[in-house]
C-alpha cells in the first residue's frame, strides 16, 4: 500500500494554518513532528471521558484510565516487536530513557577501567549522559569515528569493541546525517564480548520499521513527539531479565511494593521504573500515534520517505548545495543536512521562513559531529509522511532566492 502525502496532510489540522499568507512547508520533523487529528482527538477524548489516576483506585473511571494507559503500552510493545509489554517503560522521552539506563543499569555495572562506546554522530542526549557516567565511575568513554560519507568506521570495530567495553550506545538513524547505522552488527560484536547495546531510536522509530529482536537490542529508546504523538511521552524498551535486575531510577509512589519507615521493596517491572503520576494522557496519545502509523504501514512510511529523499537530494545537488551524509537512500533517512556556499545556515533559515518554509539551522544537538564535518552549523530539512514534492520545490525556490541575496 503506497502512501499519498496529500491525503495524509488532510489528517493534520496544522496544515490549515497559513504562514505569512503562504502554504506551511514544514521540513523540521526531525525536530518534532506535527500531530494528526486522530491523536489530538484521542487526548481530548481521554480527558473528557476517561481521566483518573492509574493503578490507584478501584472505581470504574480509574479502570478506564488504567486500561487506556496499559493499552498504549501494549501498542508500543507491538510497534517495536517487543516480546511483552512488561519490557516497555514509559518515560518523558528518549533523553529520560537513556538517563534511566545511565542511573540504573550503568551505575551498577560500569566501573573504573571499563569502557563505554558511543559514536561520533550521536545526539547530545546519547553522549552527555555517558560523559557524566564515565566521569563519575572512572570508566573511559570512546567514540567510534565517522567517515567522510557520514558512515560509521565499522572497519575499526575490533579496536573499539573489546572485552573492556561494557556498553555500546548508538543511534539507529542519525538526526543530522540521516545515516542508518548497522546496529545488528554492533550488537553482535558487543554481545560476543559480553557487553550490552543501547539503541537510540528517536530518529528511526518514526520513519522505518523497528524490531528489537532483529536488532538484538538490550535497550532501545524513542520519543512520542517525533512520531506524531504528544510531547512528554517516550519509551525505554529493556530486556525483561535486565529490567528485573536493575535498581529503581526515581523513587516515589507507584514504583514500590511495600514501604517501611527505613526501606522499601519494589513493584514489578515496568512499574518499578514509573514513579509518581506519569504523563498519562500523553502515553495514551502515543498509543494513538502508533495506531495512526500502523494504519499507514511503516513499510509505506519508509518507502515514501526514500522516494522523497531521493528527489530532495537530487534537487539539492542541482543547486550546488553541499549535502552531508550518505547519498544512497537505502542507507539513510530523510533528515538532510546541507550547506549552501556563502550563505550561513541561520541566514538561510530566516530567508526561507519568509516563504513559509520551516527548516532547522544550527548544530542539531550534535556539536562533536559538526566539528567532524568541519562546519560551524548546517541547515537541515527533514521529511515526513505529510511532505510532498511541492514542499521540496518551495524549499528549492527559497534557496535560490537566498543565494541571490548573497551573490
Amino acid at each position, binding site marked *: 500500500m503506497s502512501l499519498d502525502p496529500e491525503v495524509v496532510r488532510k489528517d493534520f489540522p496544522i496544515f490549515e494554518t497559513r504562514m505569512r499568507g503562504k502554504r506551511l512547508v514544514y521540513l523540521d520533523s526531525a525536530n518534532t513532528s506535527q500531530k494528526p487529528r486522530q491523536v489530538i482527538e484521542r487526548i481530548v477524548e481521554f480527558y473528557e471521558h476517561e481521566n483518573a489516576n492509574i493503578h490507584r483506585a478501584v472505581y470504574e473511571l480509574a479502570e478506564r484510565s488504567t486500561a487506556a494507559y496499559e493499552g498504549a503500552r501494549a501498542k508500543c510493545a507491538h510497534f517495536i516487536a517487543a516480546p511483552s509489554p512488561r519490557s516497555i517503560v514509559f518515560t518523558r522521552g528518549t533523553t529520560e530513557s537513556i538517563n534511566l539506563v545511565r542511573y540504573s543499569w550503568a551505575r551498577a555495572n560500569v566501573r573504573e577501567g571499563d569502557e563505554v562506546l558511543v559514536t561520533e554522530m550521536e545526539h547530545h542526549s546519547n553522549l552527555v549522559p555517558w560523559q557524566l557516567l564515565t566521569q563519575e565511575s572512572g570508566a573511559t568513554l570512546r567514540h567510534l569515528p565517522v567517515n567522510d560519507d557520514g558512515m560509521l568506521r565499522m572497519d575499526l570495530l575490533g579496536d573499539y569493541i573489546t572485552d573492556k567495553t561494557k556498553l555500546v550506545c548508538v543511534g539507529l538513524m542519525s538526526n543530522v546525517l540521516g545515516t542508518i547505522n548497522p546496529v545488528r552488527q554492533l550488537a553482535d560484536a558487543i554481545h560476543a564480548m559480553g557487553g550490552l547495546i543501547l539503541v537510540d531510536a528517536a530518529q528511526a522509530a518514526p520513519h522505518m520499521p523497528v524490531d528489537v529482536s532483529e536488532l538484538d537490542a538490550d535497550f532501545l529508546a524513542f520519543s512520542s513527539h517525533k512520531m506524531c504523538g504528544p510531547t512528554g511521552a517516550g519509551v525505554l524498551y529493556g530486556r525483561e531479565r535486565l529490567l528485573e535486575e536493575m535498581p529503581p531510577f526515581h523513587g516515589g509512589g507507584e514504583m514500590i511494593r511495600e514501604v517501611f519507615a527505613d526501606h522499601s521493596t519494589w513493584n514489578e517491572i515496568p512499574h518499578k521504573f514509573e514513579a509518581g503520576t506519569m504523563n498519562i494522557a500523553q502515553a495514551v496519545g502515543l498509543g494513538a500515534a502508533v495506531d495512526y502509523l500502523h494504519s499507514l504501514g511503516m513499510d509505506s512510511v519508509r518507502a515514501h520517505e526514500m522516494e522523497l529523499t531521493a528527489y530532495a537530494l537530487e534537487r539539492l545537488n542541482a543547486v550546488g548545495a553541499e549535502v552531508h551524509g550518505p547519498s544512497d537512500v537505502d542507507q539513510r533517512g530523510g533528515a538532510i543536512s546541507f550547506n549552501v556556499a556563502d550563505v*550561513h*545556515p*541561520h*541566514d538561510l533559515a*530566516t*530567508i526561507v521562513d*519568509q516563504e513559509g518554509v520551516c527548516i532547522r*539551522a*544550527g*548544530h542539531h544537538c550534535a*556539536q562533536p559531529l*559538526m566539528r567532524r564535518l568541519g*562546519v*560551524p*552549523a548546517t541547515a537541515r530539512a527533514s521529511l515526513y509522511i505529510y511532505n510532498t514534492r511541492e514542499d521540496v520545490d518551495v524549499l528549492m525556490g527559497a534557496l535560490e532566492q537566498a543565494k541571490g*541575496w*548573497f551573490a
Partner: protein
Amino acid sequence: MSLDELYKEVILDHYRTPRNRGRLDPHDVKLERNNPLCGDELELYLNFDGEDLVGIAFEGKGCSISMASASMMTEKVKGLDVKQARAMAESTKRMMAGEEPGDINELGDLVSLKGVVKYPVRIKCALLGWNTLLEGLDEVP
C-alpha cells in the same frame, strides 16, 4: 524595514565588506566568545590608551547578522572612552530588547539593527559582538 531591505541595505554591506576585520597584535585584550546554539564564533581584540579604546578588531565565523553587527560595532566604538563605549553597548542591548534605547541619534546607523528585533531567535546573533565588548571593557588594563 522588511527582511529583504534589512539584509540588502545594511547587513550584507557589512557582511561582505567588514570593517576592522582581522587581529590586533600586540593587543591589550583578546576575547573569544561563541553562540553555542548556532555556532557563531567571534574573536575580539582591544587596545587602550588610558581610558580610551584606541584599537578594535574582530575575527569570526558566523551568520551575516552576527558578523555585520560586530563590524558596525567596531566602527561605532573606536575612539570612544570606556564609559562611552559601555553606554553605547548598553543602548544597543536595550534597543534589541525592544526597549527605548535612549539617545537614538547617538546610535546612528545601528538603528538599522532594530529590524532584527522582529526575528527573536536572531537577536543573540546581533548581540554576540556587543556582549563580548562589554566583557572586554571590564578588562581594561
